[in-house]
């Protein structure tokens, strides 16, 4: 049995996770592609930049987000003036925080898959009349699917679990930014809150299990049937 309040928290977490992953996916893929395929000065620096949210404590990331995207921050002001977009204290801000925290994981997963692509297949596609873009879409992208799926799972799980950057950036507003981890945090702070913590943690686990099962199913559908001939 789940109260309406719990449902609200779960729904919000799902919304935040979904937006975060959707936001990050194209950017992460582009970064993975660039890091896997291009050689340019500053490549290692870009790589380090991508890893930053992993290395910095989440609170610092949240604080940097506050400084940049807050109402007084350069990006925040610009977003509000030009697009009327406000992120602070909004669920979209929570998604942004989760997205940034998920980025390094997603980039790495996709990069591994992109690096494993047999370049000769792209060459074959080109001789068959496919332009660079078409070959990318029909050959490289599908061959990178395992990494993309792994990125989706990792990114979603990370988003569902994101706490430090979120609470620092958008605070803990029930119904707006209070995702599962934030609710768990609140419960952990009070003596005797363990029962609630357990309940909420179990919900998180169920969510991620569902995401995993879904992704496994997608993977199997997309290329599980291709019998591998190991002989």
């Amino acid at each position, binding site marked *: 049995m789940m109260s309406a309040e719990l449902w609200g928290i779960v729904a919000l977490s799902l919304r935040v996770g979904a937006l975060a992953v959707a936001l990050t996916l194209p950017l992460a893929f582009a970064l993975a592609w660039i890091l896997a395929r291009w050689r340019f000065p500053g490549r290692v620096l870009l790589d380090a930049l991508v890893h930053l949210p992993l290395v910095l404590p989440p*609170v610092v990331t949240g*604080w940097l987000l*506050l*400084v940049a995207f*807050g*109402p*007084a*921050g350069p990006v925040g002001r610009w977003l509000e003036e030009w697009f009327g977009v406000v992120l*602070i*204290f909004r669920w979209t801000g929570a998604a942004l925080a989760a997205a940034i925290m998920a980025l390094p994981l997603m980039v790495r997963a996709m990069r591994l898959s992109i690096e494993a692509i047999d370049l000769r297949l792209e060459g074959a596609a080109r001789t068959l009349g496919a332009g660079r873009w078409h070959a990318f879409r029909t050959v490289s992208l599908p061959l990178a699917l395992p990494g993309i799926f792994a990125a989706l799972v990792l990114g979603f799980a990370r988003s569902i679990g994101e706490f*430090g950057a979120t*609470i*620092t950036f958008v*605070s*803990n*507003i029930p119904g707006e930014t209070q995702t599962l981890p934030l609710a768990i*945090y*609140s*419960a*952990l*702070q*009070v*003596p*005797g809150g363990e029962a609630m913590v357990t309940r909420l943690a179990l919900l998180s686990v169920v969510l991620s299990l569902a995401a995993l099962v879904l992704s496994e199913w997608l993977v199997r559908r997309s290329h599980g049937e291709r019998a591998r001939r190991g002989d």
Partner: protein
Amino acid sequence: AADRGPVVLAASSLQGALGEAADAWAARGHARPLLSFAASSALARQAMAGAPADLFVSADEAWMDALARAGRLRGGTRATLAANRLVLIAPAGSKVEIAIQRRFALAAALGSGRLAIADPAAVPAGRYAKTALAHYGVWDSVAPKLAPAENVRAALALVERRAAPLGIVYATDARASRRVRQVALFPASSHPPIRYPVAILKASRHRDAAAFRAFLLSLHGRAILARHGFAAP
């Protein structure tokens, strides 16, 4: 090791004051205590789990009570170390003027903004703030306009960064930040006393534990705390 001081688990907000006290203690020829600052809840849970620590200084009575109930405290060692006050703050450049009184216009002053406070559902400072606001009959009107932060420092940061036009934090936090301005001080009568209790843990094995506790509670110790803005209990 003999030259390691006692392990002190202390609420983060005491960091500056206890750090200085530890230095003063060390200057007297004692081993400097190992100070571990974190949220009271995290530290209390560690003590609850039987961690080998000597002293616990909590930011509120609730966690100390919980430890007492669990039989983790050494009898007769609980005392109040310091007290604190709540203040209403605004970003440094803000012109807002508010007097704290019955049904004062806090919601109106916030406008479309939010009130930064430590999470009232979780953090002691937030709970005190909630009581104080309820005391003046303004809680219901600002409850939908809160920005509940992870701790007092995070609430302070929200005001410093002008993400929130107003906030409620401890006097000690407001005092030390140049980016915020104290708008008003909450009368002590508006909320339960904000007290930092100290006690020796049952798991304590360090011979200096009692002496350091006594030092903190001595005139010298209290003077250091006062220098950091803490009130006498």
